[in-house]
């Protein structure tokens, strides 16, 4: 890449207004942001996870803030793929930027089943395949930790769509480079590095966790160096572009991730504090690079 990096990006053969994507689960399906007029600076929106059946999600409390980060245990709450197809995507079609649909499942086949249904819409450019969820059908470990399973998931998705898709890996075990290579072999057009790190908070007074599932997804600006290392490792290993996800709170974080090898950079937790995070990040980047 060239330094300083250019702010509009070509990605998957398209021109994106910005390299900043809104991360899955922190921006709904983008359609609410449209209403709220906060899509300025956004290169693309990644939807919250869609599963085949509707899911109510985990019992509350679903969030717990720790001194330096946030634990979330949303549980892939979503209305199911048919509802998304019928009622949400027609609205999301009005987004001024590309939409990727984040797809989750409990079995290898469910990913392709969800994608097959979503092919009925033209509201979205492509998919993000979330292999960080547990493979309930085959023992409960996350799909993403086993390259063989990642390969099967990616092949399944390749079979049912011609749209580009990114495979979003998990940092919680396994070897991310091997899983990334398997995803590419299975037809992935990008790798998203990565989903949330497993974290936990226990009250020492009684030994209990506020979050019922106990272990939850942890995010924090302090995790940036972990994500930078993984982006650098994966982008050096695979030929497809890497989309970073994790740790961004400032303009120079985005620049650092681009320098580490990311082609696009997602922002999640920061968006919860700052609805206009994308525009703010782009402003900060422009100031830093003098663009």
């Amino acid at each position: 890449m060239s330094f300083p990096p250019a702010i509009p990006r070509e990605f998957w053969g398209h021109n994106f207004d910005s390299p900043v994507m809104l991360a899955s689960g922190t921006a709904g399906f983008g359609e609410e942001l449209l209403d709220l007029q906060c899509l300025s600076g956004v290169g693309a929106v990644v939807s919250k996870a869609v599963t085949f059946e509707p899911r109510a999600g985990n019992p509350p409390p679903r969030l717990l803030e720790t001194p330096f980060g946030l634990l979330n245990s949303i549980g892939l709450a979503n209305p199911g793929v048919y509802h998304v197809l019928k009622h949400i995507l027609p609205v999301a079609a009005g987004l001024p930027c590309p939409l990727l649909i984040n797809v989750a499942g409990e079995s290898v086949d469910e990913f392709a089943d969800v994608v097959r249904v979503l092919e009925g819409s033209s509201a979205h450019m492509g998919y993000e395949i979330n292999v960080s969820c547990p493979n309930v059908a085959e023992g409960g470990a996350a799909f993403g930790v086993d390259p063989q399973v990642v390969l099967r998931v990616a092949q399944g998705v390749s079979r049912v769509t011609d749209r580009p898709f990114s495979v979003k890996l998990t940092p919680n075990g396994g070897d991310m480079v091997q899983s990334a290579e398997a995803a590419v072999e299975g037809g992935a057009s990008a790798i998203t590095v990565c989903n949330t790190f497993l974290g936990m908070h226990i009250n020492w007074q009684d030994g209990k966790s506020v979050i019922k599932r106990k272990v939850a997804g942890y995010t924090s600006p302090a995790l940036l160096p972990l994500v930078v290392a993984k982006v650098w490792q994966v982008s050096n290993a695979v030929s497809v572009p890497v989309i970073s996800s994790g740790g961004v709170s400032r303009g120079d974080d985005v620049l650092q991730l681009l320098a580490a090898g990311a082609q696009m950079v997602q922002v999640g937790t920061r968006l919860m504090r700052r609805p206009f995070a994308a525009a703010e990040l782009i402003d900060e980047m422009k100031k830093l690079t003098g663009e």
Partner: protein
Amino acid sequence: MSVIRDFDCVVKHSEQVLPGVVKIVFDCAGIASVALPGQFVQIEPSPGAFPVTRRPITINRLTENGFELLFDVIGPGTELMARMKPGDEVRILGPLGCGWTVEPGSSWLLIGGGLGAAGFQFLMDTVDSTTVLIGASDSDRVIPLGACHVVTEDGSAGGRGLVTALISEELLAGADSIAVCGPVAMMEAVWSTIPEKYRDKVQISTESRMGCGWGVCDGCSIPVSGGGYKKCCKEGPVFSGIEIDWKRWKEAGL
């Protein structure tokens, strides 16, 4: 809500009104001009990196050119807020959520527990007729409102007892709407006290741990009747009492 706006509000006044309870007045015509009773704001407790989310606080009342908040200092976020001084600029998003559903000319019965009564002032300033019942552990937890009936658990202010003891058939029957706000256990006790036939008048102001506060993260779920959840920040924080699944809500904790 169709647009959300993020304001740099200036602290006009800050004061401790009760032990561990702080009042801050912010100048911000942008929020004050559109806010409704029961709505809340999301405050950035610090311009630094931490805490990573904002803090939701109910608008206690409108002021000349802004609004007033009243909050308990309980953790790092509210501690930072307690240190805000006149002149400080603070990033505030709002107003957020759906407030009390107010029919024109309606008469209200307001039932508050401790700091849960923060926000009642705005409702009292808006509707024509209110009767206000306040319960608190002791006099240090009774926030200053206009005319109201107070009981405390230790008898240090008003009568001794629980707020449920102040609820009478006459008050329930006489009100068009009943507003309840306080700790979950107190609200549940109030709900159990209210006979079935008055329950559809009851509105409950809920709280939940929040991520965004503006509807996108699905973090602030309140269990609703018939299974499933609603978003405290967007579909609430005020819900009709019959909408809430009290059993699952109690199990949830905060």
